[in-house]
Every structure is written in C-alpha cells, then in structure tokens.
C-alpha cells in the first residue's frame, strides 16, 4: 500500500516552501562571516573594524570578503574549507594570492613599484610587515617602523649605532624617509630618483647652484659621507686631512704629508687639529662669495 503524506506533513512541506524564498533572501544579505567569527577576548579578528580596512565595501562582513574573497564554500562548510584568500597561519594561500588581495587596492603611489622590488624578489608578503586585524598597524607608527626594519636589516641597525649617525635610532628620522620598502625604480629603493635628491630633501642649503661649486658634492654625497653611520665625525668616510688629500694634491700644503707630529705636544698644526682642512676651506659644499674660489669665503 503506497504511503501518502499526512495532512500534517503536507502543511510542513507547504510552510517550508514558503520559507525557501526567505532563505534565499537571507543568503543575498551577504556572507555570514560574523555569525561564526564573533568577538572573543583572545581573538583579534574584530579589531579590524577599528581601522579603515573595517570600512571596506561598507563594513561588516563585506569588509571581510573584500580581502578574503567571497569564500562561499568556507561560508557553508566553516572550519573544513579555507576562505578564498587566507593569510595564514592555518591555511595560507599562495603568496601571489595573498599579496594580490592588498595590491588590488594599493596599486599606485607608495606601492607602484612593488613588482620587481627587493622585498618582492625576496617573496615577502605584505603581512610580513603589516598587521591588519588591529586598530593601529604598528609598522605605520614611525617609532616602531625603525625597529621593524632593523629586525631583518641588522647590519644597518648596527651602523645606526656608530658614533656619527643620522637620528634614525632615536626615531627622528626613519628608514622610510629615504627608502620606500615597497620598491623604487632606482637603487636601494630610494624614494627620490637619485641619492643627492634624497639628501637635499632635508639639506636644501646645500642645493646651490653655487658660484664656486665643489664638483663631487653635486655629483654624489656618498663620495664623502656614509648615510647610515660612520666611525668619523659628520658621517665622513675617512678623517681629514687624509680624506681631502684623496682628491687634492696641489703644490705646497695640499701635497704635504701630515702625521702625528702635527698634534698638540708636537707642533700643533692648523692643517690637522680642529677641523683640519676645513679650518680655512670651510665652504666645502660650495661658496657664493665673489672671493670664494678657494672655498674659504
């Protein structure tokens, strides 16, 4: 005898049919990320809503999918399937996918030259430096950024401690003032097109042009200075007068050897003590005095 649904069953089926469109409506409301990822004391997931990234696509779960992708399967099957884009640590997507999520928006300005940059060549992920699920990304705080760079670039971190240095270790100048960690078209991912342009951003008084130029100055500051730090005063590569005598050997005093006999206790010489050559030739970055041909005025 065939079985027929009872009246009660018919009613249930009818009600279910009525609810189906409502379910569909619910599905159109968007992903249910926040149904499972609820605020928890030990989880930082919701901290992103205290940042600008939490407002993407109108905020809420839409902000999640703007970076993690629609993740429909993850939405349905939860812990068993990763979201479309996962930044780890459990299910990290491949590097290109992870970085692609960021580069989809950050494709100009600072990040314009990311492709081919030293950090990209090193297969670094954006999240190696940046923390998104936080109200304030620590690396965007200039005091913490130097520490972040120094954790990998320890050789430079050591140079910053040398007796003569820029105020980088002190946090007044930061690595990113000169370098763009996202890459540049020139050497060392410098922000400016040349080394000198970088230096002259802060030292405009040395820009000139001067009536009497000192040609290595306008060519390359690093011929005489080490920007990260030096054993010698004023970031110099070598202590004078030897430094000057690497390029100057004119008759009389520029050509003479100046040794320890020129120190106090011997016959303290104006060519050696104090500022050595710069005791007289003080305008080494250029002079605008009509009588300054020898860079003394």
């Amino acid at each position, binding site marked *: 005898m065939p079985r027929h649904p009872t009246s009660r069953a018919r009613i249930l089926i009818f009600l279910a049919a009525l609810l189906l469109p409502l379910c569909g409506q619910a599905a159109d409301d968007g992903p249910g990320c926040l149904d499972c990822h609820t605020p928890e004391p030990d989880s930082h997931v919701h901290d992103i809503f*205290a*940042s600008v990234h939490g*407002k993407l696509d109108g905020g809420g779960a839409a902000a999640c999918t703007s970076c993690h992708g629609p993740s429909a399967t993850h939405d349905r099957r939860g812990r068993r399937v990763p979201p479309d884009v996962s930044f780890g640590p459990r299910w990290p997507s491949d590097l290109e996918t992870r970085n692609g999520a960021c580069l989809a928006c950050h494709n*100009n300005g600072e990040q314009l*030259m990311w*492709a081919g940059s030293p950090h990209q060549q090193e*297969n670094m992920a954006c999240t190696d430096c940046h923390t998104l699920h*936080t*109200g*304030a990304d620590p690396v965007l705080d200039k005091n913490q950024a130097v520490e972040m760079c120094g*954790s*990998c670039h*320890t*050789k430079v971190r050591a140079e910053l*401690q*040398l*007796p003569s240095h820029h*105020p980088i270790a*002190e946090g*007044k100048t930061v690595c990113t003032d000169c370098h763009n960690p996202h890459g540049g*078209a*020139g050497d060392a991912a410098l922000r400016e097109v040349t080394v000198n*342009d970088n230096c002259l951003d802060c030292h*405009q*008084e040395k*820009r000139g*042009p001067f*009536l009497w130029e000192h*040609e290595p100055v306008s*060519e390359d500051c690093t011929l005489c200075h080490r920007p990260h730090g030096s*054993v*010698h005063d004023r970031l110099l590569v070598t*202590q004078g007068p030897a430094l000057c005598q*690497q*390029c100057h*050997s*004119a*008759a*009389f005093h520029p050509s*003479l*050897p*100046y*040794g*320890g006999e020129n*120190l*106090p206790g011997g016959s*303290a*010489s*104006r060519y*050696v003590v*104090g*500022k050595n050559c710069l005791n*007289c030739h*003080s305008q080494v970055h250029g*002079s*605008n*005095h*009509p*009588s300054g*041909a020898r860079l003394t005025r």
Partner: protein
Amino acid sequence: MKAKHRLLLPLAAAGVLAAPVWSADTAPASQDKDDATAEGEYTPLLPSRATADSRWNASSRGQVQLGAGYTSDDNFMFGQYNGLSSEGASLIGNLRWRDSNSGDSWWRARVDDLGLATREGQFTWGKAGKLRLELGFDSQSQVRNDSGLTPFRGGDTLRLPGDWVGGADTAGWPGLDTALHRFDRELDRDKLSASISAALNAQWRVKAGFSYETKQGTGDIGGAFYSDASQGDAALLPLDIDYRSSEANIGLSYSGTRLFLDGALEYSGFDNGNDALTWDNPYDITAGPGALAQAPDNEQYRGRLSGQWIMSPEARLQFDGSYALASQDQDYLDWSANPGVAIVQDLPRNNYDGEVAIGTFNGKLLLRPLPKFEVEAFYRARDRDYDTPRDAYPYPRGDSADQPGQALAVYNTAYDYHSHTGGAELAYRLPLRSRLSFEYAFEVVRRDNTAVRETKEDSYTLGYRIQPWHNFTARLEGSFRNRNASTYRWDQRYYALLDTELINATPDSQRYINHPDFSQYYMANREQWEGKLDLGWQPAEDWNLNLGLSWRDDDYDASELGLTGSQWGRLHLSASWTPSKDLSLSAYGGADRFESDQNGRAFRGGQEKNAFEIYPPLPQASDPGRNWSLDATDTSLTLGANLRWQFAADLALEADYNYVDTQGEQDLAAAGAADLDPQDYPSVDTRLHHFTAAATWQMNRRLSLRLDYQFYQYDSNDWALRGLAVDSAGQLLSFGAQNPDETIHYLGASAIYRWE
C-alpha cells in the same frame, strides 16, 4: 691582459652555474610542475615579530602617557638627537587617539615627546578610500660638542672685546682667557606640514601638500685670514644659522587596469636669514674684519612622473623620471668685508643668476618569458646642465691682500654631468627553491671641466639563492666592476679656472693644479671585486639565526698618486628566539674593517713645478723620493641584545643593550726625503655602552604605570681634539673643545591612561 682574465672569471663562473639552468630548462614541463608542487615556493626566514611597543594597546581608542623624567647630567652625545641633553627634569607626554565609528570617516592623532625639544605630532582624518587630510608638526634638536670656548660674541657679526690685543701667534694673547665664554652648539628644526589627497573617481586621485620648516641655532665654521697659503691664520667661529624652507606639491595619479601613473609638480624654496658671517680678525683686530657668504637663497621647481604599464601578465614597464630647475640669484657680498683692502675692479655682476637643469630617469622592463625565467632590463640616466654666466673674478685673498691684477683672476666653472646606465638581470628558478641570477650593467659618465672627461664601467653580478630545506637559506653574490677612465687631463682644471694671461705666462709643463701623476679616485680606473654570503637558519620554529659575510676590494690600478686601493670586510651575526608571543629575545654582533691606501708627493711650486724635467737635482714635483703613503684602517665592533617579555598578564618588561667599539688608525710613511718624516697618528677610539629598560605595569583595564631607565656611557679620544686648548695651534684659534666622556643615567616614571 690581467684585466681580460679577470673579466673572464665571472663569465666562466656564470657558465658553470648556468649549466643546471640549461638542464633544468630542458626538463619536461610536467616535471617542473611536479617539482614546484612538491617543493613549494621560497619563503624568507624572517625573525618572529617582536611584540609591538608595550605602551600602546592597539585595541584601545585612545591612550595618553604623562609623567616625568630626569637626566643625570648635561651631555651632548646621549642627548644629541633625543632632547635629553640637559641635566634635570623633563615632561613625558605622548598620545595616541583614534576614532573610526563615525560612518565611513575616521581620524587618528599622535603626539610624541610633548615635553622635549623633539616633540612631534600628527593628525589624520579620512573618509575610506575617498579623502585623506594630514596635519603635522615635527621638531628636531641636534646638540653637538658644547665644551668649547670662544672669545667672539654676536650673531651673524662676531665681535671681539674692545680691548682685544692679538698677535701673530695665538700664544700669549693677554685678553684671551678673560674673553672666552661657553656657547651652545645646538640646532633646532621645526616643521609644519599639511597634505590632502582625494579620489576623484575610481581611477583618478589628486593630492597636494605643503610644508614649512625653520632651522635655527648655532653651528660652527672655520674662518681664515691669509694673503697666501703660507700666511694663513684661522679661527673656529660660532655660526649663526637661520634657515627657512618651504615645500609645496600638487599631484595627480591614475590607476587603470594596466596603466598606473603618478605625477607631481613640486616647489622647494630655501631662504637664509643670514647672508654673511662677519668676524673680527683676532690676530690683528686693526687689520679689519673678514666675512664669508652663507648658503644663498635658492629654489627648485620640479616635475616628476612615475608609472607602470602592465603590458601582459608576463611583461611590465616601470619608470620614474623627473626634470628640475634649481636656481639662485642671491646678491653678491662685496669683494671683501675689510675696508682696508684696496679694490680697483668692480664685481663682474651683482649676483650669480645661476640655474641648473637636472633631469633624471630610471626605467625597468620586467619580463617573465618562461614561468621560471625572469628578465629585468633597466636604464638610468642623470643629467645636470648648468646655465650660468662665466666671469673673471680677480679676488682679494682672505680679506687681507689687496685685489690682484686681471692675470690672477679665477673663472667660475660649470661642472655639467651626464650619466647613462643600462643593463639587464636574468634570473632563473632552479630546484630546491633556488634562484640563479646574472646581471650586467654598463655605465658611462661624462663630466665637463674635470680631469677626466669620460669614465665607462662594466659591472657583472652573479647571485645564487637557495633554500634546500624549509628552515635554511643561503645566498651568495659576487660582483666584478671594471671602470676605465678616458685620458687623464691633468691640465684641464688649470685651463678651466685660470685667466688666459696667466696660462700664457706659464710654461706648458707647469700648467696643472693637482700633480700630473695624481688621480682623483672617483673618476680613476678601478677594478672592484665584491662578495657577499648570507646564511639563514631556523633550527626550530622559535629560533632564527643569520650569518652575513661581505667583502669588497677596490684596486685603482692606474693611480700612482692618490687613493690606490681599499678593502672592506664585514662579518655579521644575529639571532632571535621567540618561544611565545609573550617573549622574544634577539641579539646581534658585527665586525667591520675598512682599509684604504693612498699616496702623495710633497712638492713645492715655482721653478720646481715642472713635473717632467728629469735632471739632477730633481725638481720636487718629479722626485719619487718625495712620495709618501698613508694607510688608514677603521674597525668597529657592534654588539646588541633586545628583550621583550610579557612577564605576567599585567607586567611587560623591555630591555635593550648596545655596545659599540670603534678604532681609527692612520699610519704614514715617506720614501726617504730628508725633510719628510710623517709620524703615525695615535688611534682614535670610541666606546659606547647604551642600556635601556622599561617596565609597564597594567594596574587595571584603563591605567598602567611605566618606568623607563637608560644608562649611557660614551668616550672617545679623537686626536683632532685631544689636548687641544684654544691656543694650542699657533695659527688656529680653536674652540679647545674636549673629547666626549659621558656617563648618563635617565629615569622616567609615567602613567598611561586608556579609554575605549
């Protein structure tokens, strides 16, 4: 021949290492895919991130830190840049405040070092993806060695006491001791900035920025009086600094699907409040004053365009170019500030009216013709063209001698500079997550009015990176560069600077300034070898170890006099241990050694300027017996350690220690001339211990207490200052500054209040 062999070496090495590339390339494609799947991709071994600054809780909406600190003594090395150079109490004031609950807009504010001369702050407001406004201020303070004394008083005009009596030599000046006073060598920068950027639509964005900065304080500079070099007297002078600079920019960026452009027009103006520094002559106050010109006002307009064109998934072009016009028309000072100097000829013009056009271009073409093969072709150019008048300047020497005749006039000279660099890097990914790369670059540099018209350099770089295991990486890089200079035109500078009358009056063989056998190293022939080795190892998940070795050798093989060679060696080790998110410990150590060798020849002018006459007795300029050499060696040892420890749920500890020990040596020798006997310099040693520690105790959800402590000990014995009193050198009135020898303690106590 030797050079050719050296050229062949890297090429041969490239060939050997390229063999696996070829074999890998010819392997079946399916095998490549399997390899890639099985091995995964190269992943850098980064140290685990240390806990962020424990003062700031990223989940709090606002936090303010207020307290007081105490510095144990006046100093100029510890407080060189951090605003803590004075003994006594200082205010601790820091703020982090943000809000993002107002629709799609947000803002954040930051203030640091409120109670110090290094205070800075920033306020940023934005509407997500649409608008961003930023306002900021930044103060910096730099103090330098302030242990010196000077008898001068005043700002841009330095005066000596009315009863001043000098003399030919600094020894025994009767009024010197009573006139000496201390002065602070300190510079303060204060900068205000504002910027705005707005999205016009999905592709276009406009941005603009403005900043105004002042730099004021007292520096130092040397001032000289002389009629010729043998009659030179000098004095170190306090330099009054009053700089102002303004910068403005406006830009437009475009983000298409394949084309991205970022263009900007920029202005930068520099205004110096002081045109000159004038000072009394301490050697003979009745002889009249001297003056030097301070940096001239100048301005620069620049256009810059950078961009990227993604031609296909495997090809993209990147470029960054700029064109700038820098100019200055600061009015000239008089020939001399000294009314006693006889002037017979007017200035050739009232101001320099100089302009220089600076063009730059960096371009890269990135290609990936095969999945594992990458090519980067690059081209860089830099052009510096002067558009300046050229005049004769018969200038009086050192505010002491009368104006000379036209024959001794010197001409200002333009140093146009043009460089072009082109090359390519080829990189291939091999098994074991390895990458082999080879780069060739060719650079040509042309300079006007210098001893070398043109230099050409070939550069070869071979790099190999491998990650045979997921916890180990090795990177090896070797480079060879060979720079060839065109004919060394030792007389060029003579012709460029001097007057025809003088040139004609000088025998051909004496028309030089630098010795004809002398080469300026940065445009001399050079062979440069460089090697680097970096190893990274993560023996366990919470450990990260690194070793770096680098070495460079510069051989100026065609230079007889001047810099002839230098070597740079460096060893570096670092380790970090992060067993949990609550504890991280890192340490590093590095040793550097830099050596350079330079030669010179001591010679006088007059009849003996002829460097080519070989007859007894030899003129000094052509006598190799008058050669001398200088070997300089700089070494540094740096050690450091850092601890971040969340000791308990409510107690965070931080400690950081750095030790730096440096040594600079210069040893001299002479070839044998009886009047040349240079002595070695005593070594210059510096030693630094810097320890910082902090403890943050979270009393409750809103309030924390923090203690900061710093110990700083630094001393040096630079011979330029060692035992140098104001009047130690007869022809130099120095500051008599002492080498730093500081032991400083700093203690700070503060409260941090948070709100949600």
